[in-house]
Structure formats: C-alpha cells, structure tokens
C-alpha cells in the first residue's frame, strides 16, 4: 500500500519506490526497499507527512508518499 495510508507511529517496510520525479532524491535519502519507515506526524491539512527513516526525520508531500509502497513490518 502507499505510505500515504500508513498509521502514525507504526513500523512499515518499504517494498518499492515507484518511478517519479522524486525517486532519485528518495533513494539518495535512504528510501530503499527493505528499509524500515515510521510515520511520525501529519501536516494539519493532511498534505504532507513527517516520516522517520534510518533515524532521520524527513518531511514528504502527499504526492511523494503516494509513490512509496510499504507493508506492515512483522
């Protein structure tokens, strides 16, 4: 499922980063398959998310979180 629908403070595993204009930057920041990701906060208008990946907080707009596919970490 897209990261957009992930619950706050639950751990997810990235399965794929879909082709988009942001893919290069996402991969450089460590949004690679099998990385663990957690949603920390959602912007008041629900247009952006604050996620934690590799111990770093990154703000992503909804159009970007749509392109990151995740599954719940077992």
């Amino acid at each position: 499922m897209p990261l957009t629908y992930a619950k706050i403070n639950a751990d997810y595993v990235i399965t794929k980063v879909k082709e988009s204009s942001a893919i290069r930057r996402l991969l450089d920041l460590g949004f690679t398959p099998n990385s663990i990701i957690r949603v920390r906060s959602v912007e008041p208008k629900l247009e952006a998310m604050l996620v934690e990946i590799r111990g770093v907080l990154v703000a992503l707009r909804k159009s970007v979180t749509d392109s990151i596919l995740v599954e719940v970490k077992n």
Partner: protein
Amino acid sequence: MNRTFALVGNPNVGKTSVFNRLTHSSERVGNWHGVTVDKVAKVTKHNSEIEIVDLPGIYSLTAYSMEETVSRDEILSKGYDLIIYICEANNLARNLYLALQLIELDVPFVIVVNMMDELFAKGMNIDAKLLSDRLKVPVTCLSAKNGFDADRLMIEVTEYAEQFTSNKLKLPYIQKLPIWQMREIISNTQNKSSDNELLYYFIKALEGDDYSLNKLSVSQNQRKSITALGNYKEQIAALRYEFIDKITEEVVVTENTKKFKFSTINNKLDKLLLNKYLALPIFLLIMSGIFGITFGLVGKYCTQILTIGKDYLIELLNGVLKGTALLPWMNSLLLYGIIDGACSVLVFLPQIVTLFFFLALLEDSGYISRVAFMTDGIFRKIGLSGRAVFTILTGLGCSASAVTTARGLEDDNTRKKAVMLTPFISCSARLPVYVAISAAFFVERSALIIFGLYLLGISILVLIAAIFQKTKLRSGDGPFIMEMPQYRFPTYERVAQIILSNAKNFVVKVGTVILCFNVIIWVLCNFSFTNGFVEIGEGLSIMEKISGIIAPIFKPLGFGSWKAVTALMSGLIAKEAVISTIVNLGGAQSVFFDQLSALCFMVFTLLYVPCVATIASTYREIGIKWTVFSIVMQLIVAYLTALAVRIVVLAFKNGIFYGLIALAFCIAVVVSFTMVLSIMTKNKRRVRCFSGCNNCNDIQNCCK
C-alpha cells in the same frame, strides 16, 4: 606551497561552522537546509597558505537544485587538492552515502564527523579508527560547536593530501553491476576521463543521471541499450546502503543505554508543536509574542530613551557650534544633515536586536523547519512550497540576501515567484520607518499598526502568489522532500553571532551609505540651481523642483508633497534613508498632513520597489526581464494597495456601511482580476515538468 581544500557534505551537518573555525570567519550558519547557496572561499594560514572553500550542502552527486549543481560541478571539476567531507554523527549512515560516491570518483578526501557532542548525549560513540580502516580514508571526530584543534586538523589533512595517490578501497557492490557491458556499449566515447573516473560515470549512467550520460556523450541508441541492462536506479542505492549499514553497525557504539532521553524529548516536542489542531495556533501565538515584545515593550521604552539622548546631544552640539566661526549652512549640514539624520535611524537598533534575538532562537532550535512542514499545505495552494518559509524568514532581516535563498526551491517557477514576492516581506530596514511614523501619528496603537503592516505584507504576498497561479508562472504539485533537523538548545555563541552580524550591518550601513546619502539629500534640499544656500520650504531648492514634478502622482494617496516624494526616492538607496530624509526635512509631522496620509505612506513604503541591493540580487537570480517585471509589479501593487487603504478608511469615516461597501468593492476588483486571468490562461496551461531539468516545460516531452 598553496593548496585548496573544499568543505563538502550533506545539508545542515555544520560545514559552515567548521569553515568558520578553520578560517576564523563568521559566515552565517543555520539549523536548516540551504543556508549556504553559493561557494564561499577564504584563505587561512596553517604552516602554508590554504584556501578553504565552503560548498552548499548536497546529498548525492546527482544534483537536484541550483545550489546542489554548484557543489556537484565543483566536486566533479576535481579542482581541489583535497575534500574535507563533513558528516553528522547522529546520522552517519545517510552521510556515508555521498562519501561512497567520492570513493567511486576516486578523489582525495578525509572524513570529519561533526556534532559528536550530540551523539555522546545519547550515550553513543563512533569508532573513528575502525571507520577509517573500513573506508581507507582518514577519519576525525569533533564538535565544531564546542571548538577543536584547527591547526592539528589542517596538518593531518595536508599530509594526507600530499601522499594521496588513489583510494585503496575496492567497493564490493561494484562487482554486482554490469560495468563490462557498459564499457562495451560506450566503447566509442570521446571522454578523456581516467579509468576510475569512467567507472564513476558508468555507475551514474546506470542510475540514469543525465549529467553523466551527457558527459559520456551517450547517443539515443546507447541510452536504449543502457536501459535494456535493467533498472539499476533502486538497486545501486540499495547496494550502497547495504554496504553502509554493515559499516555503521560496527562503528557506531552504544556506551550508555540510559541516556536515550534526548530523542524522547524530540518526539514529545513534535507531538505538541506539530499537532494537527494546535500547530498553527502555537506558531501564531509565538509570532504575536515576538512582535509584541519587539515593537511594544522594547520599542516603546528603548527608542524613547535613545531619542531623548539624541535630542540632548544635538542641543549640546548646537550650543558648541554657535560659538565657532562656522557658516550657518555648515552648522545646519553638520547638525541636521549628518548627526540628526544618522542618529534618528540608529535609535531603532534595540528593536532590530530584539527581533533578531527571537528569530535566532527560533532558527537555532530547529522550529523553523517544522514551520516549513506545517505550512507546506497552505503554500502549495498558492504555488509555493513550505521551503518558502526560509526565504520569508530571511526576508524579515534583509530582502537582498533573502532572494538568494530561493535557489533551494524545487522548480524554476516557484523560485522566480519567491524572488519576486520576497520584497513584500517587511525587511528590518523598513522597521525604523514604521516605528518613527507610527510613534508620531498613532502613539498608543503604534505596535498594532506595525504588526498590521507585517501582516499586510504577508497577505499581499499570498494574494499575488495566488494570482500568479493563474498565469504562466503556475507551479504544480512538485515534490517536497525536506530533512528535519533535531531540536537543539540554541547556543549562546550562534545567537550572539546572528544578533551581532545584523546589528553590525545596520550600524555600518547607517555610518556609510545612509550618512553619505543624507549629505547628498541635505545639499539637494538646501541649495538651488542659481541662488546658492536656500531655506527648505521656499520652493527654490533642487530637490523641491525635482520632487515637485513627481508629487502630483501621489496626491490620490494623500501624500503628494515634495518632501514625501524625496523620502520615497531616498528609500531606493536603502530603506533606512526614508526616515533620515524625513528627519532632514523637518520630521514626520511636517511631511504628512494627517494620520491617514501617514498610514498610506507606510503602506506604500512596505510594498514599493526595494533597495538597489535587492534589485541587483533579483537581477542575478532571475535576469533582466523578470527584474523589470517585478519592479513594475511592486510599484503598481504599492500604489493600488495604498489607494485602497485610503478609500476604505475614508469610507469608514463616513460610517461602517460605506466602509464595508468600499472594502467589498476592493475585494471584488481583486477577485474579478484573478478570474479574468484564470479565463485568459485556461487553455494555455501545461502540466509542468518537475524533474529538475531546465530545458523542458512539459511533462509529456520531459528531456529526462
């Protein structure tokens, strides 16, 4: 022998802090992405002369914005004897990603792990020797904030630069890439790069990096063959991180598990400050508090005390000068042209210091990046991005430097808009104008009037940005990806640096530009073309003649006097000159007829063309065509807004009913204008490409 070293690293890892320590400089540092937007060089002496170059932050050698392109080009030019690669201790894995690309490129570099104090606070440490062993690169751990032995570091890196031949590390993941196939596909390359460099360009070409493909002069057919090898974009990044994860697992050591409170505090603060319902009210409360203290408490008392001191000084000097043999016009020039003019601006120093004190606290704590995140939704609606907050914040200080921070914005249109709209944010140079005029005309409500002017500037920015969204300057839903710094306790040193540099800039400007300009204005106001020295107000002086020609244009705004026009013209040199000119011409009470004309003048000053320094910066960023457009736009917007304020206030004076009608009329004009623009451009709209390329505007035909 002279050498050149470059400071490279991810954004917000403290490169400029290290640069300042190494070169004993005071370049601006900040707890947000994009503080350094161009390379800054300084020569320092450590045994021999060494030039240190501070480059803007970059995450990878695939550039994503203008500032990153500067860094990438500098690194790939290999014009440096050595790269000092700065890493953030808290975030070693992500920082080593670019380090691996430097190894792939085979450039001489050393790793400096900064912010070790924050890692220690978490009860963790980094085994520098082991990290150095794994990457075959010298590693030094330090905390630039707390100071370090710069001489020792420079000796070590210079020694390494002298002995460097090639990096000894053979990156294991390269074997998993189709490098031989790449060699076969691009065998006819005219590129004269070395074998190691070619290897780097092959890896980047596999990643689909346009710059590298162009560098290798890859034809369309060759591109297709490379694509046929498979999608290596994801795989290469994953392989690099897999290698990095193995290293960081070994070198990052947990020494004390009890010290994990720091991240908990961060989480709790984020929970409160980024709360869905509380985030914006908290932000507005903080900003109201800052403006209340700056313009109410400090503004009221400090400026009053300093003004009394200034008046006493002038009286004293007047007494002294009367006893000398100076001619009357010399007396007048010295007292009113020079001393009174300059001091009347200097008395506002306490407000400027207070404003920058609070802004420095916000900036250094990491809160401003959160504001960028929580306002992104609002800014996106008007075609800007949350990152525009950094430009706006810098604009509160100086418009000229603020327009350069727009380089970090995602796409060309957003950048152009940010550059053209930033001058609507009231810079600190305009502050003395508001304070002096509102103190003279709105004694009890001066703080409210000033706060209102700041809000008006932001509202106009939002309105014009929304209008731009209906034109060819439209920005789409581009990617917004921004790393969030940790909350940090603002350090005394950094806050003091921000305050001192702004206070120094202000005082130096008053002592140089404003002082010289005051003399020129005084001469123009007190001398005529034919009669020599004349009294102000006789209608004979040079300035009265020149400004008198322009003055009727401003009659509908209520300040169509030559004095007001002279003040506005002087504001083109520097906005502080507006108030010193008004003082030169006899004070606010003699320039404006009533409260309303004073208010309209402040509105016009807020919105009209910024100073020459900002115009020059705008020209550098967006070229002559858009600079001329922005100047014309700012003049029209200033005139129409001041006129609207006058009409609405006059209507309200005749009763609330008439006031509301006038207000509704003004809003209707703006809405109609926006709708007409929207209809006119409806069929011309294109879906813009946001791939970061400069050549295409259409996503369908994107050159990437």
